[in-house]
């Protein structure tokens, strides 16, 4: 009796297994057939690092694109901050399962390109769905340089922000000063807004950060550059660079109108501890939140010595080589749409990033917005002076080397010249490899 029961159970089990296997095979067959059958949808994945308000704007753009292109499904996935994004892309590439496309910095793309992981956008320029010569040249030339590797355009510029100076307008007005335009103005404004009580500084004119980006602001507005045309020799330790670093060190230690912190400065600015700091145009919403209407504030281009300059930061759109031709076509369509004049203007208005195409500035929506927001328009004025970071794989290392030099000078462990000379020697050694 018992044996009989077991046998029956056994045969039930067998039937169940056969059923499951059959169904799985059928499911696999259907899954294999599905993309080929007519009227089907293509799914592409887009990994990005746009959190909170920025991420919401990405989702809105994706929804709009899908409405216009019902045959394409875009899965936009937030991966955390930029360094997490790069780590996840690298891990996904190692596992041979990368997303269809992603946001990426130029120096990351250099690494992906070296490993043959990128499908160059230039491959899609020809033909009816491509980009004309005029359209390509409509992208800011400096941004195109950042997307080009060995003479070929691999990526499209996407979220680019420009360095700006943020100031406490209320404090400046109290001091009877106008927003600073030059280094001299900046020093005067910082002196005027620094408050000392009982030998303790209760408010500083400006806050600095011991990193390469703050140094870059001073270096470029002093007519300097990181690396010479050959791409093999560091020139940031020339007189322009030394003077730039000396200016920051003097604000800290000689005039005592500045202090420095390693992290973001918007909280200190909002709390009224500092009357000014450098940020990027995309940080507008963070500053607004930190200030919370406690005082009037404004933004302007980075004050200059030799001439205005606007260091540009931010990522480009990269497509991965492992995607199927259908997915690549769909991703190309999305990338092209995302960076056209209308969308890039919309993106700029929503986020404070810059429009990546010149023609966007002539759109009515953009003009209206600039008229209504003169504060933000200031950063767009700086665009004609945009300068970008070198898009070489060694760039991450070089950034750290320069940051280290800036920190040494801030801590008075070395003079600006000594610190930068040492950093230049290390950089040259890296570039020579």
């Amino acid at each position: 009796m018992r044996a009989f029961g077991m046998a029956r159970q056994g045969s039930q089990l067998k039937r169940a297994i056969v059923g499951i296997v059959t169904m799985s095979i059928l499911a696999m067959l259907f899954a294999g057939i599905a993309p080929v059958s007519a009227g089907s949808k293509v799914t592409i994945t887009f990994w990005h690092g746009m959190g909170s308000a920025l991420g919401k704007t990405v989702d809105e753009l994706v929804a709009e694109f899908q409405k216009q292109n019902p045959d394409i499904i875009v899965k936009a996935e937030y991966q955390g901050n930029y360094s997490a994004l790069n780590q996840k892309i690298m891990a996904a590439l190692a596992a041979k399962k990368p997303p269809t496309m992603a946001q990426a910095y130029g120096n990351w793309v250099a690494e992906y390109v070296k490993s043959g992981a990128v499908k160059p956008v230039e491959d899609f320029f020809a033909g009816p769905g491509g980009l004309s010569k005029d359209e390509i040249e409509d992208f800011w030339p400096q941004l195109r340089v950042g997307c080009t590797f060995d003479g070929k355009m691999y990526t499209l510029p996407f979220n680019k922000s420009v360095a700006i100076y943020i100031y406490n307008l209320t404090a400046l007005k109290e001091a009877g000063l106008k927003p600073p335009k030059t280094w001299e103005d900046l020093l005067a404004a910082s002196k005027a807004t620094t408050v000392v009580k009982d030998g303790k500084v209760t408010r500083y004119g400006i806050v600095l950060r011991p990193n390469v980006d703050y140094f870059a602001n001073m270096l470029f507005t002093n007519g300097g550059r990181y690396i010479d045309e050959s791409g093999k020799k560091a020139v940031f330790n020339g007189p322009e660079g030394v003077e730039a670093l000396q200016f920051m060190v003097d604000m800290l230690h000689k005039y005592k109108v500045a202090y420095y912190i390693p992290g973001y400065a918007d909280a200190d600015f909002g709390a009224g501890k500092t009357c000014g700091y450098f940020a990027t145009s995309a940080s507008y919403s963070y500053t607004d939140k930190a200030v919370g209407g406690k005082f009037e504030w404004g933004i302007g281009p980075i004050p200059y010595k030799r001439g205005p300059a606007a260091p540009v930061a931010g990522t480009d759109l990269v497509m991965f080589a492992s995607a199927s031709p259908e997915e690549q076509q769909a991703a190309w369509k999305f990338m092209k749409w995302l960076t056209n004049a209308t969308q890039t203007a919309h993106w700029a208005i929503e986020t404070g990033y810059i429009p990546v195409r010149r023609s966007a500035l002539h759109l009515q929506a953009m003009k209206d917005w600039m008229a209504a927001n003169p504060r933000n328009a200031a950063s767009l004025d700086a665009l004609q002076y945009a300068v970008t970071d070198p898009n070489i794989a060694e760039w991450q290392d070089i950034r750290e080397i320069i940051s280290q030099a800036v920190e040494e000078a801030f801590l008075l462990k070395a003079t600006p010249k000594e610190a930068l000379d040492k950093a230049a020697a290390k950089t040259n050694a890296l570039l020579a490899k």
Partner: protein
Amino acid sequence: MLAHKTQANDAARRRRYLKETFTAYLYLLPATAVLVIFHFAPVFYAFYVSLLDWNYISPNPAFVGIANYAALLQDSDFVTSLLNTVYYVVGTVPTSMAAALLVAILLNQKIRGLAWYRTVYFLPVITAANAVAIIWFWIYHPDYSGLLNGFLDKLGLPIQSWLLDPKWAMPCIILMSIWKGLGYNVVIFLAGLQNISTEYYEAAQIDGARGWSIFRHITWPLLSPTTFFVLIISVIGSFQVFSQVYVMTRGGPLKSTLVVVYYLYKIGFEDFKMGYASAMAYALFVIIFVLTLLQRKYIGSRVHYQ
């Protein structure tokens, strides 16, 4: 007849033995599989990777032999990170152990609110390292608004910039780590203390021993297996310090808190030099392994087992 029976018995016993062994291995299989796949295989794979020049995604990594290990010896940042790590270990382990022993002895008394005190001391241990580091970040805030500086200022002492000062950054991290890790060692010491039979204390008291001499001649020697265990795991754990540095200083200022595991993380997962990072991991493994053997040889021999 008899021989035949014994033979049959032997065969049956053998069958049972084989069956039991098979069952045992079957039970061991899941855990073994997990260990092999997620621990041992990566360990050996990492050694292979340490012989490559590889960015982790390139399809054709270059085999460079021991070049990564040779480069380690030339890398001044690695040497710095090693010295900083030793500084950290020397700063945390002895102090943390002494403090934990003291607290454990206090918590071993019959006092009111014992459970509450034990909970309080264990709370930092179960709090996520990142959350703790962020709180301490505020304590060490570099100006007058920082908690620590606020106290100093009230006492009329000069304020410090703590984590921004190459001289202070490491002591700050050490202090926080001692605070965070204390409860764990306390619990182990407490278990060790409660393991000592009360008979020893009673006998010693009858012989007229009091206070310090009880501790010196009864508690300390009988606690030595626990102390030795705490020492070994503290040294191993401290050599692998990471989260505090990652959250609070990122190795700065001026590399004054650059420790080996943080440097390894930076090389491997920010610069993506996997071969070099793996070589560094193996170097750290060898250092910890040798240190553990030395501790066993020189300190382990002085441990009293009951």
